[in-house]
């Protein structure tokens, strides 16, 4: 019963959030700040992890495919496919759920317990719209760019691993990366990313907005935001994969 009540509360909050902003100029300003906070500030972390993940996949693929009957192209091909299909959209989204999700929940939660949200309300401003909508918009627009960046760096990381360890020549790796490319896989990755971005920002926004109490509750709801977002990402990953790939 509690879950149903929470889902209902979440839907009502989203209905409040998805209204026309009180002032376009203020919304755009908030959006720019959220692009910076939720997107640009994550580039370093996403880039670092993507390079290493790509390198590790390339090395593991090379290790597992030492049979001379298997094409050398498979290392580049597998690295590309894994980055596009799963590692960039899903794993990077899980990492963003930890970084961005906890930040959104704790920011909004702190505003709630220090009466800043009440202050917005009594000024005649819709707090859900003012605080949550720009964050959802920023995440839905910026995360696909981060994921494309992650895919590119992952593939480059794999190439870097080939160069530094000598497991494969650049020619074979590049041939593999270019082999049997299906453009829809990228569309699939971007659709997943948009859905995951919505989950991260809206669930974390909801967790922050519904904090009651003090700092302990803010911390508790920030943790819940990360846990619930991660669980939903995995569930929707399965649903979208089934719907889009099969």
């Amino acid at each position, binding site marked *: 019963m509690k879950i149903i009540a929470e889902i209902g509360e979440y839907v009502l909050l989203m209905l409040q959030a998805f209204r026309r902003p*009180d*002032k376009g*100029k*203020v919304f755009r300003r908030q959006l720019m*700040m959220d692009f910076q906070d939720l997107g640009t500030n994550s580039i370093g972390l996403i880039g670092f992890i993507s390079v290493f993940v790509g390198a590790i996949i390339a090395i593991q693929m090379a290790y597992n495919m030492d049979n001379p009957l298997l094409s050398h192209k498979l290392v580049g091909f597998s690295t590309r496919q894994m980055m596009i299909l799963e590692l960039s959209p899903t794993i990077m989204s899980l990492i963003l759920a930890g970084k961005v999700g906890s930040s959104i929940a704790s920011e909004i939660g*702190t*505003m709630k317990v*220090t*009466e*800043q949200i*009440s*202050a917005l*309300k*009594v*000024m*005649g*401003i819709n707090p859900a719209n003012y605080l949550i909508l720009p964050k959802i918009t920023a995440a839905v627009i910026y995360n696909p760019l981060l994921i494309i960046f992650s895919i590119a760096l992952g593939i480059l990381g794999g190439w870097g691993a080939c160069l530094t360890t000598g497991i494969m020549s650049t020619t074979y790796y590049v041939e593999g990366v270019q082999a049997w490319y299906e453009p829809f896989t990228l569309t699939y990755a971007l659709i997943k990313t948009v859905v995951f971005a919505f989950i991260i920002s809206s669930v974390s926004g909801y967790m922050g907005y519904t904090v009651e109490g003090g700092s302990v509750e803010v911390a508790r709801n920030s943790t819940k935001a990360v846990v619930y977002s991660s669980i939903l990402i995995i569930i929707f990953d399965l649903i979208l994969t089934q719907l889009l790939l099969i």
Partner: protein
Amino acid sequence: MIEINNISKSFGDQKVLNNITTTFEKGKTNLIIGQSGSGKTVLMKCCIGLFDIDEGHIDFDKRNFSAFSEKKKRNIRKEMGVLFQGGALFDSFTVEENVMFPLNMFTKMSLEEKRDRVNKMLSRVNLNNANNKLPSELSGGMIKRVAIARAISLRPKYLFCDEPNSGLDPKTAEVIDALISELTEEFEMTTVVNTHDMNSVLQIGQKISYIYKGNLWWEGSNKEIMKTENKELNDFVFSTELTRRLKLKL
């Protein structure tokens, strides 16, 4: 003028406000006093629309606020200024941005005009060189003054202050009280102050409403409160050594 008509409010089985009727007059500093847990904060939150009331109605200059839709309530809220207990300044904004915030949201003033209004308001609360400071860099008294500047930046008709002196030293508390009283007269606002600070009661209480266990127990001015025979009010007012000594001298 704000008229409170027979309002009641319960949380679950617990009745927090019981059939309260009173009036907060224009151009006066109206105080709500009472012990912690008496229901005075709930009464104020009902007035500003943060809590829905169960019975009765609240009229702002003959406009029945409690019966309005959320959209109509918003229009009246734009005429309110609220000073929250902790200030409720936006952490990520500077002092200037905090005071400018209502102007950004509800006016079409140019940046120049908004800056001018912000500087006037900050100067009115004696904070002339704090424009670029963040709330984390301010003292408790400064936070309250910035919050007052923000609350009055749109020149509201109604000013609500929730425990404006909590956490302040007596000297700073007196400055804040004096400021609230001066601004009330200057802008002809209907000011409602929620407090249990007896110094505020004596200094600025033009009309005082004493709430006891969710009921309106006594009403009068700061002069009348010292001579009251009401037992519960006497117990509250003269609960400290200082006020007891003061009473002996009267």
